[in-house]
């Protein structure tokens, strides 16, 4: 017993989040007749035994195609939905069994930014109120003090002059500004950990980089840790320290950014990497010896189909999915 404990202590020094065998099954709808006739229940295994840990100050990326369970994992970590099985430790505290009061404290430290800045704001709430709302919910500040804090955080995320935006409604702002406001709302409670669920995928290309840079600057200034969820591996490569590639509810490959990109092991990761558009014209790439991997890449994409069927433990599912692509 003792040695195990000691080891746990050692690991936990700068570990902020640890997820162990996390599972989330959603029951499938059955028709009335099926309900009468059968007892067996079918589940969608959105997250199926995921384990990982995130160190303080790190950007940990969950990447994968839609339907691979990356968003569900993010929601589980932020405690927006209860897990079916598994444990989540945040700051060495098991959060799945917290009582109501403790959950409130936990949510001050953990915030989430959603993908769609159009949908994540109440259209009838002014930006100033929406951003300051968490302060009221958590009884931190009211009135003038709240206003001061809202102005401060809006300036911080680059919405300037902040006074002009306080009384605007979400529809009066552009997508980039709204996503910045969403970040302000998440950061106003001074969380330690932010789950960012595809924060830039709905934003115009020319504004994406600015949002990503803002995220990186905020991490440095506010000592944040991010769980970054994305389907865009090019962005993942730019931003993250560690990457976990998910497929059908499981992590198929997990590693440092360098190892994943320079030496992907899993055939799925290889296929995913080969499918990413590279902003270089084909003719130039063909001539360039360093990137003369085009043939290699398509080859890999081609072999993905057959390799998978015997390599993956989920082979039958994969072959079905492949057929339907």
């Amino acid at each position, binding site marked *: 017993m003792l040695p195990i404990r000691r080891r746990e202590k050692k690991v936990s020094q700068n570990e902020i989040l640890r997820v162990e065998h996390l599972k989330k099954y959603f029951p499938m709808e059955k028709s009335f007749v099926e309900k009468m006739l059968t007892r067996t229940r079918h589940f969608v295994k959105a997250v199926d035994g995921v384990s990982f840990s995130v160190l303080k100050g790190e950007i940990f990326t969950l990447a994968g195609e839609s339907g691979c369970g990356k968003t569900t994992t993010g929601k589980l970590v932020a405690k927006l939905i209860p897990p079916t099985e598994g444990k989540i430790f945040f700051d060495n505290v098991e959060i799945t069994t917290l009582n109501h009061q403790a959950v409130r404290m936990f949510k001050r430290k953990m915030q989430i930014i959603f993908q769609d800045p159009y949908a994540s704001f109440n259209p009838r709430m002014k930006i100033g109120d929406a951003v300051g709302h968490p302060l009221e919910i958590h009884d931190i500040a009211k009135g003038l003090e709240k206003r001061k804090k809202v102005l401060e955080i809006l300036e911080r995320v680059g919405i300037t002059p902040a006074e002009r935006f306080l009384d605007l409604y979400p529809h009066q702002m552009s997508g*980039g500004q709204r996503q910045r406001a969403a970040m302000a709302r998440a950061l106003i409670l001074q969380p330690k950990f932010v789950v960012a669920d595809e924060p830039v995928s709905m934003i115009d290309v020319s504004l994406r980089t600015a949002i990503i840079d803002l995220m990186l600057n905020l991490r440095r200034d506010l000592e944040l840790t991010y769980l970054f969820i994305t389907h*865009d591996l090019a962005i993942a490569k*730019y931003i993250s320290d560690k990457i976990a590639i998910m497929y059908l509810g499981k992590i198929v490959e997990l590693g440092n950014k360098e190892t994943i990109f320079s030496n992907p092991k899993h055939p799925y990761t290889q296929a995913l990497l080969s499918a990413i558009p590279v*902003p*270089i014209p084909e003719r*130039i790439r063909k001539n360039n010896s360093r990137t003369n991997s085009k043939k290699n890449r398509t080859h890999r994409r081609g072999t993905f189909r057959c390799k998978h069927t015997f390599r993956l433990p989920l082979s039958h599912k994969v072959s079905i999915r492949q057929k339907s692509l």
Partner: protein
Amino acid sequence: MSQSLINVDALTVEYWTRRGKIRAVEDVSFSLDKAETIGIVGESGSGKSTLGLSLINLVPFPGRIIKGKIILKGKEVLKLPKDDMRNLRGKEICYVFQDPMTSLNPVKKLGDHIVELIRTHEPQITKQEALKRAKKLLKDVEIQPDRINDYPHQLSGGMRQRVMIALAIALNPSIVVADEPTTALDVIVQAKILDLLNALRDAYGMALILITHDLSIVLQRSDRIMVMYAGHIVEYAPSIEIYSNPKHPYTQGLLKSIPNIELDDQKLEAISGSPPDLLNLPKGCRFWPRCYCAFEKCKSEVPPLIKTGTEHSTRCFLYEEGRKK
């Protein structure tokens, strides 16, 4: 008259809304040859979809084509009577819409979609023959022909997009306009769809117009690229030129802001500011408020499209004759 397949000359499209006239496309000219791919890139609101739709005279209601000529194989498209226009859509120019979920009829089988299209344009063909052709088309887009009796909801997003492409190539058109054909799809499916479009282009000798917001896709896949900003062409050049020698500050900014998976330790730079409100355009060059090298003239006059190379034109005063770089 040159030998091009299609010639677009000084096309201007306006939306007459209650709040005022919006010039979505202004003074756009280009031409396209057989088996060529042209990529149109721009952010949302840059007029790229409107431009695509105006090629088949399908600009939605408050919009109207104010000025300009579209000459397809010697015929003036915009002056055709309604019936001829209907014949032209599908037979000469075909459009693959952005959203495959909503552009198929949910109560019709796949086969019926294709048969209807073929028999509308070529009434002498019997249903049996049309069905046979439908099966071959499905095979061409890599869907098993025995799924011809499936309904759209039985297909995945990628398959639906394939059906859209099958519909587009059913009558062997000379031009296929693909408007964001892969935006709703995953990277692996995206790569497959784009490969398919390229293969079909080579097999049938169609010209392809690829409309997208993702510069990496068009850099990789097209021969020439048109960069649009707030309704203007800001740069038009072969993709190799755009990649190796971008002239317009906006194009330069875009290139610097997209992550490239094949580079290590890339430094991304954001374009400052946000896209302009089309109802409230800045005076002069539409890009100057975000431009790093704007000078006095940019703020008062609209720059013309200046030839900066044999096949390269840029809408920027920096390249005006007599001006030192």
